[in-house]
């Protein structure tokens, strides 16, 4: 394995007291998630739901990327591509008459699954920085493809003809929010189970020492590829929500900067921890929001803050909670 992979939890002391902190923080996050629309309904501050929905979309995408990047050591610099594919699926299917949300989801899973399998098969031939760059290349290919698709709005993007149809919940923003929250919770629960399963063991071991995994009798490629596809599907799901949330789809969703931001969220929150990416997404977007209220030159503050967090935190926000990494075991 190349040195590119993060080494997020070189050693985890599985003390029961330690993991309680993290479980508590996760529960607190979820409780806040549930409380937001209730608070918004009571105070009439409906914008809060819009803000929180967008954060949840990116949190979901970050949780997806984390599966490849954090647990699998596959540093994809092109996951915005799947976010965009998910969003465009809603537009393209909606415009061609497929408005049923479940059907859209089913088609999305198949199409993105196939695309991710092909892209993953080619990309996983490479390691380290080459993998970073080849995933970027594929994302750029799709970006420019959608930019030149005039019929679908080109770079200007296009409004959805109608939101995905889910019976009485169609177009309901609160319903959308809770669907997002439930999906994120399911993704987190799924990740939690996956990480400790046979599949998860192979995936995580491969990140650290691929050679050893082979010598123990397991060919890592199918598992890495599966994790890559799964991670792409989660991002596509986030894109599906993003399209419905904004009622709009544009190639800007596939821009390389979005891929970069997803990486920032994952690493900032804690790559290779289950809930870290959520903390990263919340942290980054709330920070942006707060700094922008402060000054128009907010990037001049955000930049150094990111540097500081990398230097001081090493393993992300989530590692601030006990039960995390012990530095002594980190090389």
């Amino acid at each position, binding site marked *: 394995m190349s040195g590119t992979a993060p*080494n997020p*939890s*070189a*050693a*985890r*002391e*599985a003390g029961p007291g330690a993991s309680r902190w993290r479980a508590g923080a996760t529960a607190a996050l979820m409780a806040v998630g549930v409380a937001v629309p209730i608070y918004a309904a009571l105070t009439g501050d409906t914008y809060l739901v819009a803000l929180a929905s967008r954060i949840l979309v990116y949190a979901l995408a970050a949780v997806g990327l984390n599966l490849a990047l954090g647990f699998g050591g596959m540093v994809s610099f092109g996951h915005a591509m799947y976010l965009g594919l998910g969003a465009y699926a809603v537009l393209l299917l909606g415009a061609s008459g497929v408005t049923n949300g479940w059907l859209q989801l089913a088609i999305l899973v198949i199409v993105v699954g196939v695309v991710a399998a092909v892209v993953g098969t080619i990309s996983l031939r490479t390691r380290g920085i080459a993998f970073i760059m080849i995933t970027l290349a594929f994302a750029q290919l799709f970006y420019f493809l959608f930019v030149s698709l005039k019929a679908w709005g080109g770079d200007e993007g296009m409004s959805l003809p109608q939101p995905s149809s889910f019976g009485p919940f169609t177009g309901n923003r609160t319903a959308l929010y809770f669907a997002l929250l439930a999906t994120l919770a399911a993704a987190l629960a*799924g990740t939690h*189970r*996956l990480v*400790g*399963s*046979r*599949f*998860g*063991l*192979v995936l*995580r*071991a491969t990140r*650290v*020492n691929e*050679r*050893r*995994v*082979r*010598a*123990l*009798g*397991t*060919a890592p490629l*199918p*598992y890495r590829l*599966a994790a890559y596809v799964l991670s792409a599907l989660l991002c596509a799901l986030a894109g599906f929500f993003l399209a419905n949330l904004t009622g709009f789809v544009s190639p800007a969703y596939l821009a390389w900067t979005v891929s970069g931001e997803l990486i920032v969220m994952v690493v900032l929150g804690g790559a290779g921890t289950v809930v870290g990416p959520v903390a990263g997404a919340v942290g980054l977007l709330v920070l942006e929001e707060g700094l922008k209220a402060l000054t128009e030159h907010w990037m001049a503050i955000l930049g150094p803050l990111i540097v500081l967090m990398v230097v001081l935190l090493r393993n992300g926000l989530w590692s601030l909670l006990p039960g995390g990494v*012990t530095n*002594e*075991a980190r090389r």
Partner: protein
Amino acid sequence: MAAPLLAVSGLVKRYGGLLVTDRVDLALEAGEVHAVIGPNGAGKTTLINQIAGEVASDEGRVELDGRDITAWPVHARARAGLGRSYQVTSIIPEFTALENVLLATQSVRGHNFRGWTPVTAQRALVAPAEQCLELAGLLAHRHRSAGLLAYGAQRQLELAMTLAIEPRVLLLDEPMAGLGPAETRELIEVLQRIRHRYAILLVEHDMHAVFALADTCSVLVYGKVVFRGSPDEVRRSSVVREAYLGDEEIAA
């Protein structure tokens, strides 16, 4: 007579113009310990890598139980019964000791596309894993992070992982590397306890270990087997002494 469990014939590896493995032949039966010794740079690790499949051979054959596995990939050889350990400790530091061994036990029990049930909750996997840990004397440490284990314990874990894929042939690459005298003795004992179950190819610098364990010794110099015999014959051989010129270990 039936074919030997592991048969290596005419194995060759070249790096550029350099012959690293020079027509090596080996045959191992179950219950037999065959030690490969030789000075640094003799090509011992390369030989193990060739047998295990990590390094492609330029010529020669590797047969396991009569089947030609020369072209097989590493993981297929491992599943067919070739277990190897590494000279440089090659464990997953962020895993617990038990998880490290589970990674191995699950490898030989069907595919791993099972993503929901925690491995540690599967008796069918945990029971054999714990057996291996017990064999290696690590059962008490099974819930500790591998990265936090003492070096000696990590070497034992290395061996436990190798055993957990239920191999028939063990390729041990300097299992005693870096161990103190007490730890070495302990590991020799472990190997003595289990040797009857496996065919063992042992690459080792520690001559105490070699003479205590080996049935046969091959002396490798510049990739070529220059001498083969029992430990006693090796001790007496002038060829070996010449190869090890100035190396006191042989005198011990």
